[in-house]
């Protein structure tokens, strides 16, 4: 497993952990549960894997290409999530909430969008590396 695969696994594990922790705390803390999204700060751990060792190349052009493609997937997924969520929110608020949108819901959207971006980016990276490994 190369350095960027480890970074991708970090992204997947950290985002999944933050979503699971938030969901677990929701019954007890309600909106306060979004504090668990602070676990997304652990994404910086990925930087530990890309430090240069023994003067060898750790990240090369193929890794950068895979990361760029994965980031496009991540941003695209996050954008779609936000777009569809806002549409649903507008329909809901206009039908059931007199056109009012609680700001707390917008806060949830922002955190979930962030998590979605890095989760999809991580998965896209892992799939790209897996395709390369399985290729004959």
């Amino acid at each position: 497993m190369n350095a960027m695969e480890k970074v991708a696994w970090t992204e997947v594990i950290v985002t999944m952990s933050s979503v699971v922790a938030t969901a677990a705390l929701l019954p007890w803390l309600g909106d306060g549960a979004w504090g668990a999204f602070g676990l997304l700060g652990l994404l910086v751990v990925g930087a530990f894997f890309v430090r240069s060792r023994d003067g060898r190349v750790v990240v090369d052009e193929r890794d950068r290409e895979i990361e760029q493609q994965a980031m496009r997937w991540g941003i695209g997924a996050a954008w779609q999530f936000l777009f569809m969520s806002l549409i649903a929110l507008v329909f809901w608020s206009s039908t059931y909430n007199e056109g009012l949108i609680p700001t707390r819901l917008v806060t949830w959207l922002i955190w979930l969008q962030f998590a979605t971006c890095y989760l999809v980016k991580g998965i896209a990276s892992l799939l790209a590396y897996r395709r390369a490994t399985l290729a004959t």
Partner: protein
Amino acid sequence: MPRKPEPKLSNRVRELREAAGLTQQALADQVGVTRQTILALEKGSYVPSLALAIRVSRAFDQSVESVFQLDE
């Protein structure tokens, strides 16, 4: 917008590397990439940039066209 299809590129990197008695890591160190990229290159699952293709060809003292072939 539909993606541009990746060109099919075959190569003789593995054959030339083994003939030169190089490990994948040694070749990777020589051309400035990771071992996994050399592995992907040899499997044909990665299309290298022009710069990398030239560096790999120079490592074997061959022309780019003799190392990489475009399958059309």
